């Protein structure tokens, strides 16, 4: 539900970096989104397309690295990919699990361009 404010952070970070790089426009951004991050890539892409007009990213594309959830059982230390979340350890059945991957929400890279 807060995809627009997250996307504003993407524009802010990318535009800051664009100035530092002396680029003139943004061609592509790539985000890393974990399965448990609380936002879905489709909604982020929608916010990106709605917000990019009039910015240096007006013609830019957005792409995603989706990170599946990985849990670690606190009882037997087994690491596993859950069927859903929450999920019990497939080894010992314990629900006492820790999230190792799935909360990621990062700007991975930006591709810039300059016309000389």
């Amino acid at each position: 539900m807060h995809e627009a404010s997250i996307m504003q952070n993407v524009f802010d970070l990318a535009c800051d970096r664009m100035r530092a790089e002396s680029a003139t426009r943004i061609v592509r951004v790539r985000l890393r989104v974990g399965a448990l991050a609380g936002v879905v890539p489709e909604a982020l892409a929608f916010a990106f397309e709605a917000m990019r007009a009039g910015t240096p990213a007006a013609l830019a594309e957005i792409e995603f690295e989706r990170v599946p959830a990985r849990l670690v059982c606190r009882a037997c230390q087994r690491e596993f990919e859950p069927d859903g979340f929450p999920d019990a350890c497939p080894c010992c059945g314990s629900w006492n699990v820790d999230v190792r991957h799935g909360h990621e929400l990062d700007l991975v890279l930006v591709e810039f361009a300059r016309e000389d």
Partner: protein
Amino acid sequence: METTRWVVEVNQALLGKNTELAAQNRLRFHAQKLLVVNIMSGPGSGKTALLERTLSDLCGRVRIGVQVGDLQTDNDARRLSERGAPVVQILTGGCCHLDASMIAQANEKFDLSQLDLLIIENVGNLVCTASYDLGEDLRVVLLSVTEGEDKPLKYPTLFRKADLVLITKTDLAAAVGADLPALRENIHRTAPTATLLELSARSGSGLDSWYDFLWQALKRQIGKAH
């Protein structure tokens, strides 16, 4: 004209700015030896009713301040300010959660040195509030018996990050046919390390355990600060 293209690896957390501001809030709170509790739930779980009761019962023994977030109206601040504690209403203007910058602004409206406990009543929302660290020490999630036993499974992120889960409105459990064992099991599965308490702000049942939880946390906080 020639176009040059190049890729820059950034690898920065998109909520990094909020995390930094939350860390600043936390430093400030700890410098004042203040315990900060972030209370979260869906709309209508009884956050404000629990706080009304808590302020009435504890004011005089504990110096409590409240920050209360809503999209619109100062109804909650008006309800709570009759209970003898300083209350600041944070209007998010449509934003679905509180963030660390809103807390930093609201902090300016308090004399934090005159408080022992700051309670932040978050916007009623089981999804987005989970993603924003405010600088709190403890995360408390409320779930009323009227909301359905499977809510922890449907909204696991918020529950997973909770230090304490409160089942509220227990006086209504029989009337709505709540399956309390199933509700407890679903909370336990989603939040295996959280403390679980059950209470009713209306009947007063279970409030002593909630106050004891706060009291123990206050003692730990004072111990840490010294």
